[in-house]
């Protein structure tokens, strides 16, 4: 065994590649960790020795090796990813075991493990530890190769793997992808050649080696062997060097991302170091492309999450790509890596578009256009609302103000419930700030939020009802409204119904309702059932194919500041026809903006939930 030097010229590409890979990755991770803001570092310190770490380990195995989430998207796609990840991982681990089994505790350099077959021709390859390593390694190689075959197939027919569209590649991706495709076939050839010459090898390498030897003169066989090992090493080296600069950076980055996320780190309103982990954990698998309505209905194909993240990663992000997104959240829900792309997009918008608040909304100071039967003028806020338990305020929001039918319905329902309501903005008010926030103007948006907070507090309300999911979300996420319960009107109606303050009568006109989930209400605030429960109480309800968590966006999302009217209309029409296909006689939604958008997109009548509830109120209580 003394002749086992574990060195040959062909290992150089591999050694160089590996060194570069680990150097770059270490450099990147160190840099990002060091630059984490103080609060994030505190989270890391707190999280390291907590249960979160254990959970992170399990998640890493489940996602990075087994690709559980991709299996859920499509089993074939899942198999492909698992074959590469788990297969390769096992090749390494089992390879390690093989070395240990045959060479004992002896220190073997890295290339010794990787090119084990080449350097250990002098060994007898009888099973050790009761394991036929050659057969197992061949099996694993076959497993990975089957994944590779699927990947090739996907390039030709992505639809079969559940993807209508796949991502377009960058140069780095192309280099990495090409070298990756060569790694395992080269390994097969190299190991087979050596096995053939030395009469070793498992069921795969052994038999392929035998076939090679029998068809080739011995002299050419020797040079073929050398060439194959060179090819294998070069493929590995090139892949390793290109990996940190390509989408394959995700292979490693997903792991720290999982840990950091488990420890509570999140992307925020402004760009920060943690974003790098999210960005480089994106494999550009393209799962985000198919659900995107911008792509599907508006013909916009360069803004999807994968492309946005790619452009941002390489510093090529344009305003158009950052802005031209509905932020409906359909892609985010499906991301196998769980990247919070909306948060990333928002902080990109902040960097690209944010301008100093600069007192530009000072004109709202001291304004109060609210109305209500008893406007409270208290000395101190705290005393104010403790004195006025149960006082309900209604904030219509800009969009509801353009939908008088909703306003009128609210008025009727409030009256039916005997609610004494304070109307925050019936005569026009100050915008909730979410549109501004969504456009990246975070600081300026805060001015508006502070204004409305002050207004709500001054009037001592304890329940804030809104008919607009856009406002609802910002009230819940960004407003400091301790002591004030924020309800969407659907939740509020549900409560009135359960408390017996209103009663609804089912209609018998044979009408069939279909409910459209507004993005901000469903995926945004997790409210799916409240509106449905109310609708169930009054009529039969049908669901479109894509509903609830997968519900379509109406296309007029306030989050997209770029999309021209024609695109909005195209999406609205597509959504309209999805509803027409259900056979519904009426579409009901719970967002004034969705209502306007859908009204343009279909000939079916479109109503807000409030209108339906009003229509079915039992007058005599």
């Amino acid at each position: 065994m003394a002749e086992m030097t574990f060195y040959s010229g062909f290992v150089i590409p591999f050694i160089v590649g590996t060194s570069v890979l680990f150097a770059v990755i270490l450099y990147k991770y160190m840099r990002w960790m060091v630059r984490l803001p103080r609060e994030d570092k505190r989270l890391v310190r707190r999280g390291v020795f907590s249960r979160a770490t254990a959970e992170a380990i399990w998640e890493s195995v489940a996602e990075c090796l087994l690709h559980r989430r991709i299996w859920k998207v499509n089993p074939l796609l899942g198999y492909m990813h698992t074959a590469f990840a788990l297969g390769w991982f096992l090749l390494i681990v089992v390879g390690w075991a093989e070395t240990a089994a045959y060479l004992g505790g002896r220190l073997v350099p890295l290339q010794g493990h990787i090119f084990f077959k080449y350097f250990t021709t002098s060994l007898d390859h009888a099973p050790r530890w009761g394991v036929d390593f050659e057969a197992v390694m061949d099996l694993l190689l076959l497993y990975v190769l089957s994944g590779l075959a699927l990947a090739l197939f996907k390039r030709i027919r992505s639809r079969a793997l559940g993807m209508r569209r796949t991502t377009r590649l960058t140069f780095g991706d192309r280099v990495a992808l090409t070298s990756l495709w060569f790694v395992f076939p080269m390994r097969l050839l190299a190991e087979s050649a050596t096995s053939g010459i030395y009469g070793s090898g498992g069921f795969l390498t052994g038999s392929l080696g035998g076939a090679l030897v029998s068809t080739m003169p011995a002299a050419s066989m020797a040079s073929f062997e050398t060439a194959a090992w060179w090819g294998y090493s070069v493929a590995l080296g090139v892949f390793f060097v290109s990996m940190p600069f390509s989408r394959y950076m995700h292979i490693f980055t997903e792991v720290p991302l999982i840990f950091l996320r488990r420890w509570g780190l999140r992307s925020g309103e402004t760009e920060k170091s943690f974003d790098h982990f999210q960005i480089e954990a994106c494999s550009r698998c393209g799962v985000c492309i198919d659900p995107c309505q911008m792509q599907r209905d508006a013909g916009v194909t360069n803004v999807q999450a994968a492309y946005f993240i790619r452009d941002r990663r390489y510093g090529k992000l344009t305003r158009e790509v950052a802005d031209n997104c509905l932020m409906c959240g359909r892609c985010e829900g499906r991301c196998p890596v769980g990247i919070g792309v909306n948060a990333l997009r928002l902080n990109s918008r902040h960097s690209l578009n944010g301008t100093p608040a600069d007192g530009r909304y000072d004109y709202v100071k001291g304004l109060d256009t609210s109305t209500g039967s008893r406007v409270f003028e208290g000395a101190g806020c705290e005393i104010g609302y403790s004195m006025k338990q149960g006082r309900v305020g209604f904030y219509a929001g800009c969009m509801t103000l353009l939908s008088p039918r909703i306003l009128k319905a609210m008025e009727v329902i409030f009256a039916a419930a005997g609610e004494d309501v304070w109307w925050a903005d019936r005569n026009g008010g100050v915008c909730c700030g979410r549109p501004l926030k969504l456009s990246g103007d975070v600081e300026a948006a805060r001015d508006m939020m502070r204004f409305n907070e002050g207004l709500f507090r001054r009037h001592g309300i304890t329940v804030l009802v809104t008919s607009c999911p856009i406002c609802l979300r910002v009230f819940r996420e960004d407003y400091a409204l301790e002591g004030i319960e924020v309800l969407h009107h659907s939740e509020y109606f549900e409560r009135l119904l359960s408390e017996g303050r209103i009663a609804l009568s089912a209609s018998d006109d044979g009408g069939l309702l279909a409910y459209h989930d507004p993005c901000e209400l469903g995926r945004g605030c997790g409210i799916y059932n409240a509106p449905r429960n109310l609708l169930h109480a009054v009529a039969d309800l049908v669901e479109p194919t894509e509903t609830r968590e997968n519900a379509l966006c109406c296309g007029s999302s306030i989050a997209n500041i770029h999309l021209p009217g024609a695109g909005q209309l195209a999406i609205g029409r597509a959504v309209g026809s999805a509803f027409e296909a259900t056979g519904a006689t009426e579409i009901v939604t719970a967002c004034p903006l969705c209502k306007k958008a859908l009204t343009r997109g279909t000939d079916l009548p479109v109503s807000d939930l409030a209108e339906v509830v009003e229509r079915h109120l039992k007058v005599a209580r």
Partner: protein
Amino acid sequence: MKRVIVIGGGPAGMQAAVALKAAGLEPVIVERSDALGGKLRDWHNLFPSATPAREVLDGLRKAVEMARVEVLLHTEVEGLTPDGSKPSVEVALAGGHAVQLSGGRKLEAAAVVVASGFDVFDASLKEEYGYRIYDNVFTTVDVERMLNEGGVALADGSAPRRVAFVHCVGSRDEKVNQKHCSKVCCVTAVKQAMEMRALFPEADIYNFYMDIRMFGPGYEELYQRAQQESRVNFIRGRVSEASPTIDGRIQIKAEDTLVGRPMKMSVDMLVLAVGMKAGSSCEKFARTADAALSPNGFLAPADLFSGCVASGVPGVFYAGAATAPKTIGESLAEGSMAACWVVEYLDTLAK
């Protein structure tokens, strides 16, 4: 065969039928409602001359009666081919046309004149104007009806002290997929504003417009009279919102664009000058006749200049507002013109 089917018994259809009869053919008017006259039945006085609509209607009816034109009421045309399929050009060229009627009937003819007219835009789609939400929001069609019924009044029967007309409701508005100009609403709103003045000498009357399009003979003069004699105020700005006031009136918001400042005002009565939408059957006719539709949904004439009553399909002709918003006068002219084209077409076939 001398039979010619005229689809629609409005002004254009009636005029076409009378002219066809005079030319020795056998027109049959197929009308889906219970009487001839189309929307002319709902109008009060016609712009710009204030001629009572009844006069024009009676004249047409009398002419149809005198000519003994066959009329099928309560009958709807389901398609321009017997089974709703694509037509066979050979049959058409051979002078054979058959249309599918409601109730499974078929009617054969040598030619067809489509005079199916237009639909009135549904103002409740412009929710922000409050039609069918607030009691005192009306459309110009409602006002014509009220005038016919003998009086314009608020929902509680009282007289309005302030009336505002909103132009371009359901016209020139991509938000309701109506990009075209309906052309007649400006002059209708001006005419009605003047009628309001006559009814309510003390009222304030306002017209909110984007552009005033007075394209016809005597229209511009009518506009000037509305300003000068009828004291109608014209404000250049599109009303964007209507909301109720505490005293049951309607507050509207617009920008006075000539001054450059937003404005609001409360009115007792809001009248929406509704536009003309493509007739609901246009799509069906185009599909079954293999004819073209304009982007705005009206039937597309073969040529805007020399073939405005031709469909491009042999034996099928158009008249009136089936192809675009038109005035009564224009519809009547096209009725006659379509009849001429039918006669010429059949003559050519006979040769």
